């Protein structure tokens, strides 16, 4: 079993993301509040992204499997950021419904584009594990629009 050093932050983030998700979706008194809902959905989907990045690397070193898990993690991460943009729109543009709707459409298009670019980049540059000075690192393509 190998844990790449540059994935440690995801392992550290998993407990707090689980707490935020469970608290917001299950235990909170304000679970029907829009802010709580978007925040917990965003952290819940990001938790799934963190799991997609972290779990496969424990069981395989195969570049193809790691590339697919990175693509899945990237897609979930962009969906999570989509929820955070929706929350931002709700907080800043609550006075103007058309502006909020426009932002939602723009963010949806950027999310789909980001996922597409991530797939292209990751397939062109497959995810691999590399050992440098007896430290294991994961090397993957970084995507952001």
């Amino acid at each position, binding site marked *: 079993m190998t844990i790449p*050093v*540059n*994935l*440690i*932050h995801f392992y*550290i*983030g998993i*407990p*707090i993301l689980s*707490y*935020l998700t469970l608290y917001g979706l299950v235990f909170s008194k304000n679970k029907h509040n829009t802010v709580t809902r978007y*925040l917990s959905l965003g952290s819940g989907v990001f938790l799934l992204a963190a799991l997609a990045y972290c779990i496969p690397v424990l069981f395989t070193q195969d570049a193809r499997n790691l590339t697919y898990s990175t693509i899945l993690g990237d897609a979930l991460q*962009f969906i999570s*950021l989509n929820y*955070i*943009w929706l*929350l*931002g729109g709700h*907080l*800043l543009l609550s006075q103007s419904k058309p502006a909020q709707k426009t932002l939602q459409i723009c963010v949806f298009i*950027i*999310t789909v584009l*980001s996922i597409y670019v991530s797939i292209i980049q990751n397939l062109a540059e497959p995810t691999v594990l590399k050992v440098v000075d007896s430290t294991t*690192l*994961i*090397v*993957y393509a*970084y995507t*952001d*629009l």
Partner: protein
Amino acid sequence: MFGALIVVGLSFLLQIKQATTVSQKYRIAAIVLAFLVNGVLFSVAPLIKLNTSSLPVVIIVSGSFIAMTALMILSQVTRAKISAQ
């Protein structure tokens, strides 16, 4: 895409004064800290050609998650104290 974290982080930062209890302030501070640190880091990284899988970035992100966890624990502790009173 990561600009969303800055937008929401700043919105929450402006709401800290409106929080009525210390517990709420800790909770909002936890979210503001994590969102602003990660939002700024990942928005600026491509502009300054910073490798996001490099160790300095991993250390900063890990630190933000640890600080967020600590503030959330403080929020729960203060809420439990208020409930006990």
